[in-house]
């Protein structure tokens, strides 16, 4: 198993940059289809931390990535901001916000949110089919 831990300060302007760094690392291992899903979920999760947990102010963020080769990618995103109220369902068609959590649940095989010791923890698993791994041996 290969592990990556990234600690950084997240802001609304910095969230995508953090995601791009993780994406660049993952690009060595999985195909673009899997990479797209993980990038989307990480972006939504970092956006949540920046916008909702820290209300747009700079705050600590930790991303843990476990690559279990030929099986799955496990992700954990943690911040120490305000507790997050998960809107589980898809909003009405014409609503202009509130789709982030739905996206996370749709593209990952497992999704969990918990509040642990004053931190918000999002945990995800993406199962990766044998043909979706890149030849990187």
């Amino acid at each position: 198993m290969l592990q990556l831990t990234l600690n950084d300060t997240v802001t609304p302007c910095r969230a995508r940059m953090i995601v791009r760094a993780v994406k660049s690392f993952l690009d060595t291992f999985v195909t673009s289809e899997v990479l797209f899903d993980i990038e989307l979920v990480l972006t939504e999760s970092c956006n949540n931390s920046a916008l909702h947990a820290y209300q747009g102010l700079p705050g600590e963020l930790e991303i843990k990535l476990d690559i279990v080769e030929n099986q799955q990618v496990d992700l954990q995103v943690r911040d120490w901001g305000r507790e997050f109220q998960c809107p589980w369902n898809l909003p009405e068609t014409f609503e202009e916000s509130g789709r982030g959590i739905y996206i996370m649940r749709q593209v990952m095989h497992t999704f969990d949110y918990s509040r642990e010791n004053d931190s918000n923890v999002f945990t995800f698993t993406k199962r990766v089919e044998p043909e979706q791994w890149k030849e990187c041996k």
Partner: protein
Amino acid sequence: MERVQVEEKGHVLTVDISQEVTMEVVNDLKKDFEGFFSGSWQVLALDLSEVSFMDSAGIGFVTALNNRSLQEGRIFCLLNPSEQVIKTLKLVNLWDLFQVHQSLDEIFRLYPAE
């Protein structure tokens, strides 16, 4: 660098967004489009052919453009959206909400000037 490329041809305003449409740029895009809505165009064609990534903030932005166009009695459509945009809109069941066209010729044919 310009965030968007704008072309007004008759009653159709085409806005080309050749960048990611995400939380970090959506507020700036909203300011750009606020100005566009003062124009007299009847059809807004949002060219998303070069958009490589869109998050839920981007989805909200496109939905807001659609909402406002409808409220003002105008037509809003997507022009040749990229595969990534299509996939993201389908993911949140919004693909069927939008009029989607592959070319400006198609738009002029379907929505002639009143």
